[in-house]
């Protein structure tokens, strides 16, 4: 070993002690943790403009959704102070806000016009009336379908179809030889993936996660109906290996022309009609299906920017949030990439803009968002808020495991009854551990 490397290592060692001073060296740089979704990647591309306008430099930490959740949750619960802005969703925001881990966003500038945020979004990102995260984009879910295949099957999509219609249409559109699956849906394990879909779907079948005493409800007819319906439909007309397909997998299948219908996030509408899609010219939209029980199967979600209470740079972070979630950013993207590519679902004014109203999926997105009510999502009364989730801290952990059991059932490794029995046990176990029961 050379003298040089010895010296270098020794320097490293001595710097360990000096490092705390080292870390505070930058004053006008904010660090933002975000998810690697298309709209966020696009926003990163415009960061230079923000820096030029405000003099604030931005460091991006872009991570895949699961890694991001793990990373920001560790940091927020330990008050680690690693990030000045975190990208979180409708599930985390009220819980973290209640714990006072987030900086309230109640003093944003008049120019920002917080009142313009869609009430459904603002409601889901608040705790006791105080906004804790500003929506970058918001979404519900809806049906995206191939108009050409629908026509070839001799069917016509109603604007508000039922599950029976969808299942039938899926079977009609399926053509295994041509590699066309009638319907593509999420079956992937994970509460934000297949778990979100099946929970939203179960609402339309009259199922719920908990009764009013926080008892798990997986032993009910409604849940068994939901899963059986889902699995039968997917086995008949879904793609191979749907038990591992999530949003991205289905998006790629749909764009390759391998799906007749796809029920998923409304933000996907701009992707399936965009440049990467081989079927962009023949996509239609409809409301997520129902079962005649008064609840549809669409969810409500927003990816939002929040400021952790541990940051030293609240003002800089707020400046960024006003820039990224404000009206100016929407105009910026519209001017450069067209109205179809602006972040959707966050602001009322966007849907009043005639330019945006001309975008084919705009109205259906708005209708879907407006028809979703997190405070009244189930047919029978339930004690929780949230459509595709229950806004309690334990839900993410429980639903991850429950959705793993469901995925195993989709893959045929256990029966639906077995999966539901396990889900029931897992949920009650965890609720007991958390002191609910």
């Amino acid at each position, binding site marked *: 070993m050379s003298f040089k490397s010895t010296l270098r290592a020794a320097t490293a060692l001595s710097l360990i002690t000096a490092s705390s001073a080292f870390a505070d060296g930058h004053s006008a740089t904010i660090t933002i943790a975000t998810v690697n979704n298309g709209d966020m990647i696009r926003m990163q591309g415009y960061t230079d403009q923000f820096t030029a306008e405000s003099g604030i430099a931005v460091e991006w930490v872009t991570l895949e959704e*699961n890694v991001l959740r793990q990373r920001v949750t560790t940091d927020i*619960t330990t008050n680690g102070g690693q990030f000045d802005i975190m990208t979180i969703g409708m599930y985390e925001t009220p819980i973290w806000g209640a714990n006072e881990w987030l900086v309230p966003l109640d003093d944003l500038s008049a120019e920002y016009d917080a009142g313009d945020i869609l009430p459904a979004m603002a409601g889901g990102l608040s705790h006791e009336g105080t906004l804790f995260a500003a929506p970058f984009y918001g979404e519900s879910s809806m049906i995206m379908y191939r108009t050409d295949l629908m026509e070839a099957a001799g069917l016509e999509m109603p604007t508000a179809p039922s599950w029976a219609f969808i299942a039938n249409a899926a079977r009609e559109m399926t053509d295994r030889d041509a590699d066309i699956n009638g319907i593509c849906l999420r079956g992937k394990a994970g509460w934000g993936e297949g778990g979100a879909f099946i929970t939203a779907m179960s609402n339309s079948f009259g199922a719920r996660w908990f009764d009013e005493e926080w008892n798990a409800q997986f032993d009910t007819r409604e849940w068994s109906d939901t899963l059986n319906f889902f699995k039968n439909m997917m086995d008949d007309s879904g793609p*191979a290996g749907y038990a591992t397909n999530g949003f991205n997998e289905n998006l790629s299948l749909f764009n390759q022309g391998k799906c007749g219908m796809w029920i998923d996030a409304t933000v996907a509408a701009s992707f399936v009609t965009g440049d990467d899609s081989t079927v962009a010219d023949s996509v239609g939209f409809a409301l997520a299906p129902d079962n005649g029980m008064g609840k549809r199967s669409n969810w409500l979600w927003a990816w939002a920017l929040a400021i952790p209470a541990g940051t030293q740079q609240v003002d800089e972070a707020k400046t960024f949030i006003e820039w990224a979630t404000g009206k100016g950013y929407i105009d910026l993207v519209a001017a450069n990439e067209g109205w179809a590519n602006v972040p959707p679902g966050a602001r009322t004014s966007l849907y009043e803009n005639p330019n945006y109203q001309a975008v084919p999926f705009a109205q259906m997105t708005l209708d879907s968002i407006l028809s979703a009510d997190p405070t009244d999502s189930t047919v029978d009364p339930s004690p929780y808020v949230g459509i595709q989730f229950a806004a309690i801290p*334990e839900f993410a952990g429980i639903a991850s495991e429950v959705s*793993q059991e469901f995925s*195993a059932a989709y893959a*045929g490794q256990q029966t639906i009854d077995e999966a539901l029995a396990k889900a029931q046990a897992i949920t009650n*176990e965890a609720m007991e551990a958390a002191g609910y029961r």
Partner: protein
Amino acid sequence: MATKASRSAARLMMAPAVILLLGWMLVPLTMTVWFSFRTYLPLRGGDQGWTGFDNYVRFVTSSSFWPAVTTTLIILGSVLVITIVLGVLLAILLDQPMWGQGVVRILVIAPFFVMPTVSALVWKNIFMDPTNGLFSHLWRLFGAEPVSWLSDAAIPSIVMIVSWQWLPFATLILLTAIQSLDSEQLEAAEMDGASPLSRFAYITLPHLGRAITIVVLIQTIFLLAIFAEIFVTTGGAFGTRTLSYLIFQRVLESQNIGLGSAGGVYAIILANIVALFLMRIVGKNLDN
């Protein structure tokens, strides 16, 4: 032999390594044990006090515990068997005279340099994806129905990915050992009319005993901790939840530090049982 002075010097020289590792073991371990006796729910106001052995009881009585232990051992055992059997065969092959031996060796050791995250991502998407993966293309080319690897054969798929990563390591160690084998002994046996199979069974294999032990020991240490491969491919679904993945779910997904810490203590105990078992064999083998 060593004098008293050199012995105390030796102690002094060992001190930094021992103290550092002692610290590395004790500090987190003490904290883990401490947390494991408490109700610690960061999302519900943090540390809520002493709870005795509740977490320990809850962790083992959970319906996920024993399947997780079994999965851990199945993955560990399968990867060990595959890497060692294939490693021995590969080492024997690479020991034979051939053209371009150096290049072949480079090809064979390459997977060892690939980071687990990358290898899991590449296998999952580019190879095993049931629609666009290379395997699905191949299957269709031969008129077969593509396999949904990561759902229908989840554990074998993960075993395969991990084995691919660790085969080079086993091969290299075994190859070094084979190269040190006295070729005259083999020739003598050959002249006595011993078949290639019995030469392998009675000369080569016993000679490799020590090397195999080392491979088992080192690989076990790393395999008990595999995480990225499962996190990326199945996220613990389809029966691939190992003990360390279960702890991950308790700590990070459920945000129950107390319960997760109790799981951590169990994992340490399991690791030490496996270790003790291994040390017995290794210790015996290393003395000879």
